[in-house]
Every structure is written in C-alpha cells, then in structure tokens.
C-alpha cells in the first residue's frame, strides 16, 4: 500500500501530463499541477526550518564537535527571522514593507548576506585557475587537444590574438585566431554540446517512462 499509492498517483499524473501535450483542452494541466507543488513547497519551508533547528539545536545541546558553527547558524536564523517578522528598525513600523530601506532586515541582507554570498562566488575565480592548471597539463592526447582549444579561445578573445594574426590574408581568414576561436565554439564545441543534449533528452524520456510505468522504484525503496 505504501508503495502502490505513490506508483498509482505517478502513473495517473504522468500519463495525464503526457496526454495534455497532445490534447489542447488539457494543456494547462501541467500548470495546475505545478500549483500543487508550490503549495506543498510552502509547507516544506516550515519543515526545512524545523529540521535546521532540530539538527543544530541537538548539536548545541550535546556540545558536539564544532557546535559553535551550529550556534552561529541558529543565532543568524533567529535574528533574521525576528528582523523580518517584527520589522525591527523598520522606518514604516510593523505595517511597512519588510524590505523597506533602513530596516534591520534590509540592512542585514545588504551588508551581511549579500557580501558573504558575493565572497563565495568570487572564490570561483581562484577555483577556475586551480582547475585550469590541472586540466591544461598536456598529460595525454585528449588533454593536449583541450589545451590547444583553450589557448585558441583565450587568445582569440584578446586584442593580442587579433594583432598576432591580422597579417593573414582574408582568403585564409579562418586561420586568424579570433575567427578560429569562433569556429571552435560554433562547430566542434556546439556539435559536442548538441550530442550531449540529445542524449540528455533521451535519458529524460527514458527515466520519465520508467517512473510512470513504475519500473523505476528505487526511490521508494523497493528492492528485488
């Protein structure tokens, strides 16, 4: 029963959604179902908050390793919650917009949350550099091709790339590095991407059919 009910619902909803693609009177069924998902998601926010408090609360209470991080997490959670719920420092009072300029919520969002997020995002630049270093070592033929392609694209997008090969006559313009960079992006790169996209599309169809037909039930815990 625990597994039959979800499988039956999946089959009915999945089949209905497939048919709605071909039958215009039912084409909004997908949107209607996504509303149900949104409604469930709203309740899940409480679930998420509750889980966060339970997990970190236990860590603090039992003083487990690194419980200090948990304390900061919970303190930040309650501070932001209070600032938003009670509109602390909000110039317009309790009835004003929660994101009103000058409110504690807005101040914390602008001066704490956003800079921290931006800092994490900025780390990406360093990680790209370290990952590139590993990827571009010409260990084998594949890595060498990658290195050459990356070199062409990087050089093709700089003024140096333009000036270095501007002497090549127009009849051989493809050999000019900026044009070569464009060719790499629009021909071999795009062809590869499309091949992966076709594979993904077929994979999505196959996976969806497995779920609708109830063949794939690992997530329900059914094992042979």
């Amino acid at each position, binding site marked *: 029963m625990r597994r039959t009910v979800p499988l039956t619902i999946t089959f009915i909803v999945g089949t209905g959604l497939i048919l709605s693609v071909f039958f215009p009177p039912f084409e909004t069924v997908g949107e209607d179902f996504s509303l149900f998902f949104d409604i469930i998601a709203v309740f899940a926010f409480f679930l998420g908050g509750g889980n966060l408090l339970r997990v970190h609360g236990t860590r603090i209470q039992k003083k487990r390793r690194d419980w200090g991080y948990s304390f900061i997490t919970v303190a930040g959670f309650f501070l932001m919650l209070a600032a938003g719920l009670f509109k602390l420092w909000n110039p317009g009072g309790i009835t004003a917009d929660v994101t009103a300029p000058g409110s504690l919520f807005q101040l914390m969002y602008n001066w704490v949350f956003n800079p921290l997020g931006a800092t994490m995002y900025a780390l990406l630049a360093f990680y790209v550099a370290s990952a590139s270093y590993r990827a571009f070592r010409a260990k084998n033929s594949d890595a060498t091709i990658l290195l050459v392609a990356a070199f062409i694209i990087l050089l093709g997008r700089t003024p140096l790339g333009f000036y270095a090969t501007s002497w090549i006559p127009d009849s051989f313009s493809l050999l000019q590095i900026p044009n070569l960079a464009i060719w790499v992006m629009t021909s071999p790169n795009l062809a590869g991407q499309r091949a992966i996209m076709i594979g993904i599309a077929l994979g999505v169809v*196959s996976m969806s059919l497995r779920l609708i037909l109830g063949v794939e039930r690992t997530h329900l815990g059914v094992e042979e």
Partner: protein
Amino acid sequence: MKLKTLIVLSCMLLGGSVFSAAQEVTDATALTDTAAVAAPRPIADLFARDSENDHGHSLTLSWTISPDDGAGQMNVIGYELYRALSPDGEFELRGKFPFGAASYIDVGAKEKESSQYSPDHTDFYYKVRALTSDPEVFTDSEIFGPVQSYGQWFNTGRIPVLVFVIGFLTTTVILIRRARGGADLFVRRLPGIEAVDEAIGRATEMGKPILYVLGLGTAADIATIASYTILGRVAKKVAEYQTGLIVPCYDPVTMTVAQETVKTAYADAGRPDAYSEDMVYFVTQSQFAYVAAVNGTMLRERPATNIYMGKFFAESLILAETGAFAGSIQISGTDEIAQIPFFVVACDYTLIGEELYAASAYLGREPLLLGSLKAQDYAKAAVILLAIIGFLTMNFGLEGFKELFYISN
C-alpha cells in the same frame, strides 16, 4: 518730433516685416509638416482565421504591409489592430506593432471574468490601422470578417512527437519483455558508476563518511529524481558496509524525499537501527550559503568520497575543487551542460548527461531497468541515423525530409 516719428515708423515697418517673415516661416513649416504626414496607403489582403492546434480563444491574422511601409512615402511607423463584434460596432484596440509587421496572433483569455476574455464561436470583425508620426494621420484597412475562434481536441502539429513517444514506448516494452525472458542485454561500461562501489569500500576502510550532494534542483527536477535512485543504491551499500553518510540538502522538499529514500534503503539493507535523521538535513536555500556550508563539512569531516548527482550551477566547481583539496574521491553527474566541464576537470569520475539517468539501471542490473536503458541506446542510434539522413538530404536539396520533423506549438 519728425525724427521720433520716423524712428517709430521705421520700427513698425521693420517689426512688421519681421512679423511677416515669421508668419511666412510658420506657414512654410505647417506646409512641410502637412507634407511629411500625408495619409499612408492602407494594408491589403487582411485575413483572419482560427489559430490551429490550440484550445480556442485565439485568432491568427495576416496582411500585406502598406506600400508606404519601408517604401513609397516611407511614413508608416507602425500598425494597430482593432476588433469589433459587428462591422458597424465599436472597434477595440487589440494590439500594437512596429512597421514591417505582417501578422499577429490575437490571443484572448478563456476565463469569462477576465478583461481580456475572448469568446469562442463568436463572430469578430477586424481592421488594421497604418500609423504615421502624426497621431491624427492614419489609414484604416478594409474590415475583415466574420471570423470565429474555436478549440481543437488534438494538436496535429505534435504528431512527430507522438510517433516518437509511441515508438520509444513500444521499443522499451519489447526490450523489457526480452530482458525478462532472460536475454543478455549488453550495456556499455560506465566507469563512474562502477567506481561507486569502490568509493564506498574505500570510505569503509578509511572509517570516514560519504558525502552525497543532491544539487540545487527541486524534487520535481528529473535530474534530482535520478539522483534519488542513485542515493537509494548508495545508501543501501553504505548501510551494509556500516559507513557514515552525510546528505546536506538545498531544498526542504528534496530533503524530505531524500530522508525517506535513505531510511527505506537502510531498512532494505536490514539495518533500520543504523539510520539517523541527522544524516539527511536541510542547510539553506541560498546558493552560496549552501556552498559555504557544504565546503565547511568537507573540510571538517574530510569525507572519503564525495558524490555529486543532480542539478548544479555555478557552485559545481567550488564544491568539486574543495573536495579535491580535501583529498576525497569524487564522482559527479549532472545534466547541466555548462557544468559538465567543471566536474570533468575537478572530479575523478563524471557521469555525462544521460549517464546520470542510466546510473540507476546500471547499478541495479534489473531486467526491467536494463530493458529501458537498452531502448534508450536504440533511440540514440535512430537519432544518429536520422541526423545522417538529414545531412545528406539537406545537402542534396531535399527539404521534404526536414519537414517531416516540423513541430508546431
């Protein structure tokens, strides 16, 4: 006195001549303006019909642009579409579009309470107004009508998709039956999936946990659903080997499903007591805050293996590089094309695109799943064949083959 009178008279004459000159300039400007906004010639061949393959409430209009649109007097700056319930009725504005426009789909709402409600099976009359830079100067077309909108029951524009779905479904069912009958279906190796067992074994030997990241997708994303199936397999092995498992979640709904998946996997492995609710937990729905938390976990817990399966965005490289620095074995899989190169670079094994969806079937080796996986391979072979045929026919100027695959909205 005479001098004074002379000066006044001179001023009057001068002033008069200036005034006269100004008057002449004004008249000339008026004449020029009038010449610039001559009435344009109207559009021609206005035609309206019901929009095909929809649920009604929509009409498709087309016309031949005014001869003064981009040519002739060059004074048409745009068009307005008007509609009325009778040729003599009050016309209401339905749309505005710039010069050069020669078609429009007049879509109305199907809800009666909407201000944009457009009833089906009702006669409508249309006209198109050619506009100039002067709002007072325009030319209306002849009125076209009556025309009615109505809904269709079947979208004929999607027949190619239906054929594909039926073909794929049939192939899948046939191959599943073959697999059930004991046929040995060859499935190519997926090193990334084969590495999962090895990675779990390594974690057990090292006495360190396994970190499983479901990505930033919601529970409704097919990549996340595929990830659940892999998580189920991984959790079962982890339970059998009595290794630790950490699953930090980005989405509360995802977390709830993941908790159930892991819990059931532990029960299936015969170790329901080993399951702890702290294994699968919610972190945050902020992308980079989530990354910071997971990176912190990686650096503090030093998991032996990191598995990233699902939907990833800019955080993919930050996660994978941190994992690499921490010395973990890393296995990843995503259907986000832009993130695949990052994972390939930073992880030991990467499931590229469709391999993510094949992983569960490959891990399980169940006939039912292998049959569907084999059908996927046949579909891919068919796509390759069609691409080759398309390449050849297009190069020989045979456009008809391409038309077979035309799909309308």
